[in-house]
């Protein structure tokens, strides 16, 4: 039914619409299966919630996240301030809501940098093999052998603290696993008959890699990236905690824990609220990643 109507309506762009229909069917089928698994559904729910909160932050937040009200500082949770207030009297709930934007910003930026770089390096090195593979993989090894947070620290120290620099630092440490994964997938695909067939049609290596190999690696890379997001959130929070990520007065979750640390014993909500937010979101990405793997893995 669906196929017929779509095809009839757009006779000129038949192949695109057919592709869209295929994608749509996959999505519908996929979301059915996601909902089948309660853990994945929960993960998806939290991630969707994060997106909505970030998008509608001004409407959801009850206060201005930056407005200080010293007379009202360090108030425990109440109906006026749901998660209490911090040492400057700022509303923690509103800061968490706005902080979700920063978290999402970091995740998106890192993913946009890391995904393509990892995919390109992995597929190129797997497809060509030989010297190219050796060079690329040794570079990857070097990046893998540094502890992530230490390398990020070094970069931020060199570039100066700031959100963008933190993003670059995190991106630099998180592309190697993606490259490794893409290479391993490519090594398996390289000898596949359909790749040999397109070689025999005279396709250039670039064309083969980007049109034929990359789409096959994409699903496992997406799964890996989703799982990575949990790590990214934690590293970003870690950098924020050390004062090297987002700078005051930005309501970044890690930085919030860091400043709340000094008041932690008497005023637990300063640390508990952002801590719970970090935990919840990174757990949600892990659950979603697991579910996506079950869904996208061609071996299933």
């Amino acid at each position, binding site marked *: 039914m669906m196929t017929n109507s779509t095809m009839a309506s757009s006779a000129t762009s038949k192949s695109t619409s057919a592709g869209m229909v295929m994608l749509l069917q996959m999505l519908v089928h996929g979301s059915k299966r996601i909902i089948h698994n309660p853990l994945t559904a929960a993960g998806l729910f939290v991630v969707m919630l994060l997106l909505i909160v970030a998008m509608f932050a001004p409407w959801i937040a009850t206060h201005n996240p930056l407005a200080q009200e010293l007379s009202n500082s360090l108030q425990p949770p109440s109906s006026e301030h749901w998660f209490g207030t911090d040492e400057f009297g700022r509303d923690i709930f509103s800061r968490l809501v706005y902080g979700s934007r920063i978290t999402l910003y970091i995740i998106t930026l890192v993913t946009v940098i890391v995904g393509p770089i990892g995919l390109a390096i992995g597929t190129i090195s797997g497809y060509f093999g030989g010297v190219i593979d050796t060079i690329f993989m040794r570079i990857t090894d070097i990046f893998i052998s540094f502890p992530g947070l230490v390398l990020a620290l070094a970069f931020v120290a060199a570039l100066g603290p700031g959100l963008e620099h933190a993003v670059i630092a995190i991106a630099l440490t998180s592309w190697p696993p993606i490259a490794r994964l893409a290479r391993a997938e490519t090594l398996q695909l390289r000898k596949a*008959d359909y790749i*040999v*067939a397109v*070689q025999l049609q*005279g396709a250039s290596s670039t064309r083969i890699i980007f049109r034929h190999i990359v*789409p096959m690696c994409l699903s496992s890379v997406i799964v890996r990236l989703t799982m990575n997001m949990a790590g990214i959130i934690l590293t970003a929070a870690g950098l924020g905690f050390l004062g090297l990520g987002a700078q005051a007065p930005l309501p970044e979750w890690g930085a919030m824990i860091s400043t709340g640390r000094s008041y932690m014993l008497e005023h637990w909500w300063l640390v508990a609220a952002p801590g719970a937010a970090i935990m919840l979101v990174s757990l949600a990405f892990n659950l979603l990643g697991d579910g996506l793997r079950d869904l996208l893995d061609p071996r299933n």
Partner: protein
Amino acid sequence: MNMINIEGLNLSFGSGSNESKILHDVNIQVKAGESFGLVGESGSGKTTVLRCLAGQYHHWSGQLSVNGNSLQHKLDKKRCIDMQMVFQDPYGSLHPRHSIETALAEPLKIHKMDNKDQRISSILKKVGLDDSFRYRSPHQLSGGQRQRVAIARALILEPQILLLDEPTSALDVSVQAEILNLLKELKEKEGLTYLMVTHDLGVVTYLCDRVAVMQNGHIVETISSSNLANHGASEPYTKMLLDCCYHTEARLNDTTSFAN
């Protein structure tokens, strides 16, 4: 003129004491419009010959020429227009994420050919599939339909030569018959030259005019199909293969004569 000319083809893997020679001085001449079969058991090197022609190995030595052009070690676009290949496994030879239309349009895009739409329609018709197959993806097709698509993909560049690597051995017998009929019909209509690898003597004598029997990288015997069918084979290895195939006519009772 010989459409495919293979002279003194040698190929080995590894080096030094680990060197293992896969092909020994293989000579094959296939005339234009002829279909030629390569038969042998696994490990005989029959598929390797095909893969050398298809540019999958770069370190062979000897002379290869196709349609009068001698072949370089690397694939070039000219060779792709002259020669295409159909693979054994119809489940592995089509890109799982590409629709049939994408798969068929790809070679046309690579060679910047015009009239894509028309060419795809007519090639689908030639292999006995209707236009509705365009928008399907491989996992919606049966093995036989996939193999038809693979043949269509090979023919869309209008090559003169098809390399067939066990094109029916992964199919059910009833589907095998359909594909063999199709291949025979296409050959007669389009005047194609076939070089087919198979282990099935029945298939080879049905489709091919001449046959080369390979064993351990050597060509043991080259013989015409009719001669083969009329017990004209002279080499004991060929006779042994024939005998195994003729088992339909005699009860199996003799183990000793075939023990290696």
